[in-house]
Protein backbone atom coordinates (compact mmCIF):
# COMPACT_ATOMS: atom_id res chain seq x y z
CA UNK A 1 0.00 0.00 0.00
CA UNK A 2 1.33 3.42 -0.92
CA UNK A 3 2.19 5.55 2.09
CA UNK A 4 -0.18 8.34 1.11
CA UNK A 5 -3.18 6.03 1.03
CA UNK A 6 -3.43 5.34 4.71
CA UNK A 7 -0.81 7.15 6.81
CA UNK A 8 -2.59 6.09 10.00
CA UNK A 9 -2.16 2.40 9.22
CA UNK A 10 1.43 3.00 8.18
CA UNK A 11 2.18 4.84 11.41
CA UNK A 12 0.90 1.91 13.44
CA UNK A 13 3.20 -0.40 11.51
CA UNK A 14 6.15 1.99 11.79
CA UNK A 15 5.86 2.12 15.56
CA UNK A 16 6.58 -1.59 15.76
CA UNK A 17 9.69 -1.47 13.61
CA UNK A 18 13.24 -1.20 14.82
CA UNK A 19 14.34 1.28 12.18
CA UNK A 20 11.43 3.68 12.00
CA UNK A 21 11.24 5.89 8.91
CA UNK A 22 10.17 9.50 9.15
CA UNK A 23 7.10 10.22 7.05
CA UNK A 24 5.77 13.55 8.27
CA UNK A 25 8.12 15.54 6.06
CA UNK A 26 7.66 13.51 2.92
CA UNK A 27 4.22 11.89 2.73
CA UNK A 28 0.86 13.56 2.25
CA UNK A 29 1.16 17.28 2.85
CA UNK A 30 4.86 16.76 3.52
CA UNK A 31 5.27 17.04 -0.25
CA UNK A 32 4.39 20.73 0.09
CA UNK A 33 7.37 21.14 2.39
CA UNK A 34 9.68 19.51 -0.12
CA UNK A 35 8.21 21.65 -2.87
CA UNK A 36 8.78 24.70 -0.66
CA UNK A 37 12.41 23.71 -0.08
CA UNK A 38 12.93 23.11 -3.78
CA UNK A 39 11.29 26.32 -4.98
CA UNK A 40 12.82 28.61 -2.39
CA UNK A 41 16.31 27.20 -3.03
CA UNK A 42 16.05 27.43 -6.80
CA UNK A 43 14.50 30.90 -6.54
CA UNK A 44 17.36 32.13 -4.37
CA UNK A 45 19.85 30.68 -6.85
CA UNK A 46 18.04 32.50 -9.66
CA UNK A 47 18.52 35.78 -7.79
CA UNK A 48 22.25 35.15 -7.55
CA UNK A 49 22.67 34.58 -11.30
CA UNK A 50 20.24 37.36 -12.22
CA UNK A 51 22.24 39.88 -10.19
CA UNK A 52 25.44 38.59 -11.77
CA UNK A 53 24.07 38.88 -15.31
CA UNK A 54 21.97 41.99 -14.62
CA UNK A 55 18.71 40.29 -15.64
CA UNK A 56 15.63 42.22 -14.52
CA UNK A 57 13.33 39.44 -15.75
CA UNK A 58 15.38 36.91 -13.79
CA UNK A 59 15.05 38.99 -10.64
CA UNK A 60 11.29 39.06 -11.05
CA UNK A 61 11.22 35.34 -11.73
CA UNK A 62 13.33 34.72 -8.64
CA UNK A 63 10.96 36.65 -6.40
CA UNK A 64 7.99 34.79 -7.86
CA UNK A 65 9.58 31.37 -7.35
CA UNK A 66 10.64 32.13 -3.77
CA UNK A 67 7.16 33.47 -3.00
CA UNK A 68 5.66 30.27 -4.39
CA UNK A 69 8.06 28.33 -2.18
CA UNK A 70 6.83 30.34 0.79
CA UNK A 71 3.22 29.51 -0.05
CA UNK A 72 4.14 25.81 -0.32
CA UNK A 73 5.73 26.03 3.14
CA UNK A 74 2.52 27.52 4.52
CA UNK A 75 0.38 24.82 2.92
CA UNK A 76 2.42 22.21 4.76
CA UNK A 77 1.76 23.66 8.21
CA UNK A 78 -0.96 22.15 10.34
CA UNK A 79 -2.10 25.66 11.35
CA UNK A 80 -0.92 28.05 8.66
CA UNK A 81 -2.96 30.88 10.16
CA UNK A 82 -0.39 30.98 12.95
CA UNK A 83 2.62 30.98 10.62
CA UNK A 84 3.75 34.43 11.79
CA UNK A 85 4.69 32.86 15.13
CA UNK A 86 7.55 31.04 13.40
CA UNK A 87 9.68 34.18 13.47
CA UNK A 88 9.88 34.12 17.26
CA UNK A 89 12.88 31.88 17.81
CA UNK A 90 15.65 32.89 15.38
CA UNK A 91 18.21 32.52 18.16
CA UNK A 92 17.74 28.74 18.19
CA UNK A 93 15.51 27.40 15.42
CA UNK A 94 16.60 27.12 11.80
CA UNK A 95 13.00 27.22 10.64
CA UNK A 96 12.66 30.67 12.22
CA UNK A 97 15.86 31.79 10.53
CA UNK A 98 14.59 30.43 7.23
CA UNK A 99 11.28 32.29 7.41
CA UNK A 100 13.01 35.52 8.40
CA UNK A 101 15.47 35.12 5.52
CA UNK A 102 12.60 34.56 3.13
CA UNK A 103 10.74 37.62 4.40
CA UNK A 104 13.89 39.76 4.22
CA UNK A 105 14.58 38.53 0.70
CA UNK A 106 11.05 39.10 -0.58
CA UNK A 107 10.69 42.58 0.93
CA UNK A 108 14.15 43.88 0.02
CA UNK A 109 14.20 42.09 -3.34
CA UNK A 110 10.85 43.57 -4.34
CA UNK A 111 11.93 47.04 -3.24
CA UNK A 112 15.20 46.67 -5.16
CA UNK A 113 13.31 45.59 -8.26
CA UNK A 114 10.96 48.56 -7.97
CA UNK A 115 13.93 50.92 -7.66
CA UNK A 116 15.43 49.35 -10.74
CA UNK A 117 12.20 49.87 -12.63
CA UNK A 118 12.27 53.60 -11.91
CA UNK A 119 15.99 53.80 -12.59
CA UNK A 120 17.04 54.71 -9.05
CA UNK A 121 18.95 51.58 -8.19
CA UNK A 122 22.43 53.13 -8.34
CA UNK A 123 21.99 55.17 -5.14
CA UNK A 124 22.80 54.25 -1.55
CA UNK A 125 19.31 52.88 -0.95
CA UNK A 126 19.66 50.57 -3.94
CA UNK A 127 22.97 49.31 -2.57
CA UNK A 128 21.53 48.65 0.87
CA UNK A 129 18.51 46.84 -0.57
CA UNK A 130 20.73 44.74 -2.81
CA UNK A 131 22.93 43.83 0.13
CA UNK A 132 19.94 42.90 2.31
CA UNK A 133 18.38 40.87 -0.49
CA UNK A 134 21.66 39.00 -0.87
CA UNK A 135 21.74 38.35 2.87
CA UNK A 136 18.17 36.99 2.62
CA UNK A 137 19.16 34.91 -0.40
CA UNK A 138 22.14 33.44 1.46
CA UNK A 139 19.86 32.63 4.40
CA UNK A 140 17.41 30.83 2.12
CA UNK A 141 20.17 28.81 0.50
CA UNK A 142 21.68 27.98 3.87
CA UNK A 143 18.81 27.25 6.22
CA UNK A 144 17.29 24.14 4.62
CA UNK A 145 20.38 22.02 4.97
CA UNK A 146 20.78 23.08 8.59
CA UNK A 147 17.11 22.34 9.34
CA UNK A 148 17.89 18.72 8.56
CA UNK A 149 21.48 18.63 9.77
CA UNK A 150 20.74 19.57 13.38
CA UNK A 151 18.44 16.56 13.87
CA UNK A 152 20.46 14.07 15.88
CA UNK A 153 17.51 11.71 15.88
CA UNK A 154 17.98 10.96 12.18
CA UNK A 155 21.65 10.14 11.58
CA UNK A 156 21.31 10.29 7.78
CA UNK A 157 20.60 14.00 8.10
CA UNK A 158 22.95 14.75 10.96
CA UNK A 159 25.99 15.71 8.89
CA UNK A 160 27.59 19.04 7.92
CA UNK A 161 27.63 17.85 4.31
CA UNK A 162 23.90 18.35 3.99
CA UNK A 163 23.97 22.17 4.15
CA UNK A 164 26.70 22.16 1.49
CA UNK A 165 24.60 19.84 -0.66
CA UNK A 166 21.51 22.03 -0.33
CA UNK A 167 23.46 25.18 -1.17
CA UNK A 168 24.90 23.50 -4.27
CA UNK A 169 21.46 22.33 -5.36
CA UNK A 170 19.95 25.76 -4.74
CA UNK A 171 22.62 27.43 -6.89
CA UNK A 172 22.29 24.91 -9.71
CA UNK A 173 18.51 25.24 -9.49
CA UNK A 174 18.91 28.96 -10.13
CA UNK A 175 21.03 28.33 -13.21
CA UNK A 176 18.52 25.76 -14.42
CA UNK A 177 15.61 28.19 -14.08
CA UNK A 178 17.48 30.78 -16.13
CA UNK A 179 18.27 28.17 -18.79
CA UNK A 180 14.58 27.36 -19.02
CA UNK A 181 13.71 31.06 -19.07
CA UNK A 182 16.21 31.67 -21.88
CA UNK A 183 14.70 28.81 -23.86
CA UNK A 184 11.30 30.45 -23.40
CA UNK A 185 12.61 33.70 -24.84
CA UNK A 186 13.68 35.72 -21.79
CA UNK A 187 16.50 37.81 -23.22
CA UNK A 188 19.84 38.81 -21.79
CA UNK A 189 21.09 35.44 -20.63
CA UNK A 190 24.56 34.64 -21.87
CA UNK A 191 23.84 30.97 -22.48
CA UNK A 192 27.37 29.66 -23.03
CA UNK A 193 28.69 31.28 -19.87
CA UNK A 194 25.66 30.21 -17.80
CA UNK A 195 25.84 26.64 -19.06
CA UNK A 196 29.54 26.50 -18.22
CA UNK A 197 28.91 27.71 -14.65
CA UNK A 198 26.02 25.31 -14.35
CA UNK A 199 28.18 22.43 -15.50
CA UNK A 200 30.66 23.14 -12.72
CA UNK A 201 27.92 23.41 -10.10
CA UNK A 202 26.32 20.16 -11.29
CA UNK A 203 29.65 18.33 -11.20
CA UNK A 204 30.28 19.74 -7.70
CA UNK A 205 26.86 18.58 -6.53
CA UNK A 206 27.53 15.12 -8.01
CA UNK A 207 30.77 14.93 -6.03
CA UNK A 208 28.94 16.06 -2.89
CA UNK A 209 26.21 13.42 -3.38
CA UNK A 210 28.86 10.71 -3.73
CA UNK A 211 30.83 11.86 -0.68
CA UNK A 212 27.60 12.15 1.32
CA UNK A 213 26.42 8.65 0.46
CA UNK A 214 29.88 7.15 0.96
CA UNK A 215 30.13 8.77 4.38
CA UNK A 216 26.67 7.65 5.42
CA UNK A 217 27.15 4.08 4.20
CA UNK A 218 30.05 3.64 6.59
CA UNK A 219 28.19 5.23 9.48
CA UNK A 220 25.73 3.72 11.99
CA UNK A 221 22.98 1.18 11.36
CA UNK A 222 20.24 3.79 10.74
CA UNK A 223 22.39 5.67 8.21
CA UNK A 224 23.27 2.47 6.42
CA UNK A 225 19.59 1.60 6.18
CA UNK A 226 18.93 5.08 4.79
CA UNK A 227 21.57 4.60 2.12
CA UNK A 228 20.12 1.20 1.24
CA UNK A 229 16.70 2.84 0.79
CA UNK A 230 18.32 4.89 -1.98
CA UNK A 231 20.86 2.54 -3.50
CA UNK A 232 19.28 -0.85 -2.90
CA UNK A 233 17.20 -2.05 -5.81
CA UNK A 234 14.28 -2.72 -3.49
CA UNK A 235 14.78 0.43 -1.47
CA UNK A 236 11.74 2.63 -0.87
CA UNK A 237 13.34 5.58 -2.67
CA UNK A 238 15.60 3.81 -5.14
CA UNK A 239 13.50 4.59 -8.23
CA UNK A 240 13.37 8.29 -7.31
CA UNK A 241 17.11 8.22 -6.65
CA UNK A 242 18.25 6.47 -9.81
CA UNK A 243 15.82 8.13 -12.21
CA UNK A 244 15.36 11.52 -10.56
CA UNK A 245 18.63 12.30 -8.83
CA UNK A 246 21.12 10.34 -10.92
CA UNK A 247 19.73 10.25 -14.46
CA UNK A 248 17.72 13.47 -14.74
CA UNK A 249 19.62 15.42 -12.12
CA UNK A 250 23.22 14.48 -12.86
CA UNK A 251 23.81 12.36 -15.98
CA UNK A 252 21.68 14.44 -18.38
CA UNK A 253 22.91 17.87 -17.22
CA UNK A 254 26.56 16.79 -17.11
CA UNK A 255 26.37 14.99 -20.49
CA UNK A 256 24.57 17.83 -22.22
CA UNK A 257 26.74 20.38 -20.48
CA UNK A 258 29.89 18.77 -21.82
CA UNK A 259 28.32 18.40 -25.25
CA UNK A 260 27.28 22.05 -25.36
CA UNK A 261 30.69 23.17 -24.10
CA UNK A 262 32.52 21.41 -26.92
CA UNK A 263 29.82 21.65 -29.57
CA UNK A 264 26.80 23.72 -30.45
CA UNK A 265 23.50 23.11 -28.76
CA UNK A 266 20.24 24.88 -29.51
CA UNK A 267 18.79 27.01 -26.69
CA UNK A 268 15.65 24.91 -26.45
CA UNK A 269 17.77 21.84 -25.81
CA UNK A 270 19.48 23.69 -22.98
CA UNK A 271 16.02 24.55 -21.75
CA UNK A 272 15.20 20.86 -21.60
CA UNK A 273 18.46 20.29 -19.74
CA UNK A 274 17.30 22.95 -17.29
CA UNK A 275 13.98 21.16 -16.79
CA UNK A 276 15.78 17.86 -16.33
CA UNK A 277 18.10 19.45 -13.80
CA UNK A 278 15.20 21.00 -11.90
CA UNK A 279 13.48 17.63 -11.65
CA UNK A 280 16.75 16.27 -10.26
CA UNK A 281 16.86 19.13 -7.75
CA UNK A 282 13.42 18.27 -6.48
CA UNK A 283 14.19 14.60 -6.25
CA UNK A 284 17.36 15.09 -4.26
CA UNK A 285 15.22 16.82 -1.62
CA UNK A 286 12.64 14.08 -1.86
CA UNK A 287 15.24 11.32 -1.51
CA UNK A 288 17.00 12.91 1.47
CA UNK A 289 13.67 13.26 3.27
CA UNK A 290 12.36 9.86 2.20
CA UNK A 291 15.47 8.03 3.37
CA UNK A 292 15.39 9.60 6.83
CA UNK A 293 15.34 6.86 9.47
CA UNK A 294 15.35 7.43 13.20
CA UNK A 295 17.96 6.08 15.57
CA UNK A 296 16.86 2.62 16.65
CA UNK A 297 15.42 2.31 20.15
CA UNK A 298 15.00 -1.42 20.37
CA UNK A 299 18.73 -1.99 19.96
CA UNK A 300 19.10 0.12 23.06
CA UNK A 301 17.40 -2.27 25.49
CA UNK A 302 19.35 -1.82 28.68
CA UNK A 303 20.80 -5.11 29.82
CA UNK A 304 22.94 -6.14 32.74
Amino acid at each position, binding site marked *: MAIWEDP*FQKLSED*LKTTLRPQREWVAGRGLFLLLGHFLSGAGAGTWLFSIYYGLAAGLMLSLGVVALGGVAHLLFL*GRFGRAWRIVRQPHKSWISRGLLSMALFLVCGTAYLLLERIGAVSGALGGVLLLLSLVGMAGILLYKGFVYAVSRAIPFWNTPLLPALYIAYGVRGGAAILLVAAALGVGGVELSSLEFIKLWVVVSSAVLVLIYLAGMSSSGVASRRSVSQLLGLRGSASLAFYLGVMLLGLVVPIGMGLFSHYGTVLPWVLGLVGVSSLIGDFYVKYCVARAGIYLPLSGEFPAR
Partner: protein
Amino acid sequence: MRYVMVIDLKRCIGCYGCQIACKSENATPPGVFWARVLKQEAGKFPNVRRSSLPLLCMHCQDPACQQVCPTGATTKSDNGIVEVDSDECVGCRYCMMACPYGARYFNAKERSYFGQGLNEYEKVGYPNHPTGVVGKCDFCRHRLEKKLEPACVANCMARARYFGDVDDPNSEVSHLIREKRGQQLHPELGTDPSVYYLPA
Protein backbone atom coordinates in the same frame (compact mmCIF):
# COMPACT_ATOMS: atom_id res chain seq x y z
CA MET B 1 12.33 19.49 41.82
CA ARG B 2 12.63 17.15 38.87
CA TYR B 3 10.08 14.48 38.15
CA VAL B 4 11.49 11.25 36.78
CA MET B 5 10.04 7.87 35.92
CA VAL B 6 11.90 4.64 36.53
CA ILE B 7 10.89 1.55 34.57
CA ASP B 8 12.09 -1.82 35.79
CA LEU B 9 12.53 -3.93 32.65
CA LYS B 10 12.92 -7.03 34.80
CA ARG B 11 9.40 -6.59 36.09
CA CYS B 12 7.80 -5.43 32.84
CA ILE B 13 5.82 -8.23 31.23
CA GLY B 14 4.97 -6.31 28.06
CA CYS B 15 1.22 -6.41 28.67
CA TYR B 16 0.53 -3.04 27.02
CA GLY B 17 -1.37 -2.04 30.15
CA CYS B 18 0.45 1.31 30.26
CA GLN B 19 -0.45 1.97 26.65
CA ILE B 20 -4.12 1.27 27.29
CA ALA B 21 -4.15 3.18 30.58
CA CYS B 22 -2.67 6.21 28.83
CA LYS B 23 -5.22 5.97 26.03
CA SER B 24 -8.02 5.67 28.54
CA GLU B 25 -6.79 8.51 30.75
CA ASN B 26 -5.88 10.98 28.05
CA ALA B 27 -8.35 9.95 25.34
CA THR B 28 -5.68 10.19 22.67
CA PRO B 29 -7.04 9.85 19.12
CA PRO B 30 -6.28 6.94 16.77
CA GLY B 31 -2.65 6.86 15.70
CA VAL B 32 -1.50 8.73 18.79
CA PHE B 33 0.37 6.77 21.44
CA TRP B 34 1.79 8.88 24.21
CA ALA B 35 2.81 5.63 25.89
CA ARG B 36 3.69 2.55 23.89
CA VAL B 37 5.58 -0.70 24.23
CA LEU B 38 8.22 -1.82 21.79
CA LYS B 39 8.86 -5.56 21.57
CA GLN B 40 12.08 -7.20 20.50
CA GLU B 41 13.13 -10.77 19.95
CA ALA B 42 16.78 -11.67 20.28
CA GLY B 43 18.82 -14.82 19.92
CA LYS B 44 18.30 -17.98 17.90
CA PHE B 45 16.05 -20.94 18.55
CA PRO B 46 16.02 -22.51 21.12
CA ASN B 47 17.80 -19.71 22.97
CA VAL B 48 15.38 -16.92 22.21
CA ARG B 49 14.56 -14.02 24.47
CA ARG B 50 11.68 -11.60 24.09
CA SER B 51 11.93 -8.25 25.73
CA SER B 52 9.72 -5.22 26.03
CA LEU B 53 10.67 -1.59 26.09
CA PRO B 54 7.95 0.77 27.33
CA LEU B 55 8.33 4.19 25.73
CA LEU B 56 6.94 7.62 26.43
CA CYS B 57 8.16 11.18 26.29
CA MET B 58 11.51 11.20 28.09
CA HIS B 59 10.99 14.76 29.40
CA CYS B 60 14.63 15.48 28.66
CA GLN B 61 16.45 18.13 30.65
CA ASP B 62 18.05 19.34 27.44
CA PRO B 63 15.20 18.58 25.04
CA ALA B 64 16.04 18.46 21.34
CA CYS B 65 12.40 19.22 20.56
CA GLN B 66 12.49 22.47 22.49
CA GLN B 67 15.70 23.58 20.82
CA VAL B 68 14.26 23.37 17.32
CA CYS B 69 10.71 24.62 17.96
CA PRO B 70 10.32 27.80 15.89
CA THR B 71 7.43 29.25 17.90
CA GLY B 72 8.40 28.45 21.48
CA ALA B 73 5.38 26.16 21.81
CA THR B 74 7.52 23.54 23.55
CA THR B 75 8.57 24.55 27.02
CA LYS B 76 10.14 22.92 30.05
CA SER B 77 8.62 23.50 33.47
CA ASP B 78 10.51 23.94 36.71
CA ASN B 79 9.55 20.40 37.66
CA GLY B 80 11.24 19.05 34.52
CA ILE B 81 8.10 18.31 32.54
CA VAL B 82 8.33 19.19 28.85
CA GLU B 83 5.04 20.49 27.53
CA VAL B 84 3.52 21.57 24.21
CA ASP B 85 1.23 24.58 24.13
CA SER B 86 -1.23 23.59 21.43
CA ASP B 87 -2.32 27.21 21.05
CA GLU B 88 1.21 28.16 20.05
CA CYS B 89 2.09 25.17 17.87
CA VAL B 90 1.89 25.74 14.09
CA GLY B 91 2.21 22.06 13.19
CA CYS B 92 5.59 22.25 11.43
CA ARG B 93 6.58 18.93 13.01
CA TYR B 94 10.23 19.92 13.39
CA CYS B 95 10.10 18.64 16.96
CA MET B 96 9.12 15.22 15.63
CA MET B 97 12.22 15.18 13.45
CA ALA B 98 14.40 16.19 16.39
CA CYS B 99 13.03 13.82 19.04
CA PRO B 100 15.17 10.67 19.16
CA TYR B 101 12.54 8.78 21.13
CA GLY B 102 9.56 8.98 18.76
CA ALA B 103 7.48 10.50 21.53
CA ARG B 104 5.60 13.10 19.52
CA TYR B 105 2.53 12.77 17.35
CA PHE B 106 0.90 15.02 14.83
CA ASN B 107 -2.87 14.99 15.03
CA ALA B 108 -3.65 15.52 11.36
CA LYS B 109 -7.41 15.34 11.45
CA GLU B 110 -10.23 14.33 13.75
CA ARG B 111 -10.77 10.62 13.50
CA SER B 112 -12.94 8.25 15.45
CA TYR B 113 -11.90 4.79 16.56
CA PHE B 114 -15.20 3.35 15.49
CA GLY B 115 -15.78 4.93 12.10
CA GLN B 116 -19.27 6.34 12.63
CA GLY B 117 -18.58 9.72 14.14
CA LEU B 118 -17.31 10.36 17.65
CA ASN B 119 -18.82 8.43 20.52
CA GLU B 120 -19.63 10.08 23.84
CA TYR B 121 -16.22 9.32 25.33
CA GLU B 122 -14.42 10.74 22.29
CA LYS B 123 -16.61 13.84 22.30
CA VAL B 124 -15.43 14.58 25.82
CA GLY B 125 -11.76 13.67 25.31
CA TYR B 126 -10.89 14.87 21.82
CA PRO B 127 -11.24 18.62 22.45
CA ASN B 128 -8.02 18.22 24.46
CA HIS B 129 -6.28 17.12 21.26
CA PRO B 130 -6.72 19.86 18.68
CA THR B 131 -5.96 18.94 15.09
CA GLY B 132 -3.09 20.39 13.09
CA VAL B 133 -0.71 20.46 16.04
CA VAL B 134 1.74 18.15 17.77
CA GLY B 135 1.03 16.52 21.11
CA LYS B 136 2.81 14.27 23.56
CA CYS B 137 2.87 12.82 27.06
CA ASP B 138 2.90 15.38 29.86
CA PHE B 139 3.38 12.89 32.72
CA CYS B 140 -0.40 13.24 33.30
CA ARG B 141 -0.03 16.77 34.60
CA HIS B 142 -3.72 16.90 35.51
CA ARG B 143 -3.23 13.89 37.79
CA LEU B 144 -0.04 15.28 39.33
CA GLU B 145 -1.97 18.42 40.28
CA LYS B 146 -4.26 16.14 42.29
CA LYS B 147 -1.27 14.40 43.90
CA LEU B 148 -1.90 11.29 41.80
CA GLU B 149 0.70 9.31 39.85
CA PRO B 150 0.64 9.27 36.04
CA ALA B 151 -1.89 6.77 34.70
CA CYS B 152 0.74 4.42 33.29
CA VAL B 153 2.40 4.19 36.71
CA ALA B 154 -0.81 3.79 38.67
CA ASN B 155 -2.10 1.08 36.34
CA CYS B 156 1.05 -1.01 35.84
CA MET B 157 -0.01 -4.43 37.05
CA ALA B 158 3.59 -5.67 37.33
CA ARG B 159 4.56 -2.62 39.40
CA ALA B 160 7.37 -2.00 36.98
CA ARG B 161 7.04 1.78 37.06
CA TYR B 162 8.06 4.26 39.72
CA PHE B 163 7.58 7.98 39.74
CA GLY B 164 9.02 10.68 41.92
CA ASP B 165 11.42 13.53 42.50
CA VAL B 166 15.00 12.69 41.63
CA ASP B 167 16.26 15.85 43.32
CA ASP B 168 15.21 14.30 46.63
CA PRO B 169 18.07 11.90 47.44
CA ASN B 170 15.79 9.89 49.73
CA SER B 171 13.04 9.32 47.15
CA GLU B 172 12.36 5.84 45.84
CA VAL B 173 13.36 6.80 42.31
CA SER B 174 16.67 8.21 43.49
CA HIS B 175 17.43 4.99 45.37
CA LEU B 176 16.50 2.84 42.38
CA ILE B 177 18.56 4.85 39.90
CA ARG B 178 21.53 4.84 42.24
CA GLU B 179 21.41 1.27 43.49
CA LYS B 180 20.05 -0.58 40.47
CA ARG B 181 22.04 1.30 37.88
CA GLY B 182 19.25 3.18 36.14
CA GLN B 183 20.04 3.86 32.52
CA GLN B 184 18.78 6.43 30.05
CA LEU B 185 18.09 5.79 26.37
CA HIS B 186 20.68 7.24 24.02
CA PRO B 187 22.63 9.11 26.70
CA GLU B 188 25.26 9.89 24.06
CA LEU B 189 22.89 12.46 22.54
CA GLY B 190 23.21 14.62 25.62
CA THR B 191 19.46 15.13 26.08
CA ASP B 192 19.50 13.87 29.68
CA PRO B 193 16.14 12.04 29.69
CA SER B 194 13.99 11.90 32.81
CA VAL B 195 12.95 8.31 32.16
CA TYR B 196 15.35 5.72 33.55
CA TYR B 197 15.36 2.00 32.83
CA LEU B 198 16.50 -0.64 35.26
CA PRO B 199 18.22 -3.40 33.27
CA ALA B 200 16.36 -6.62 32.49
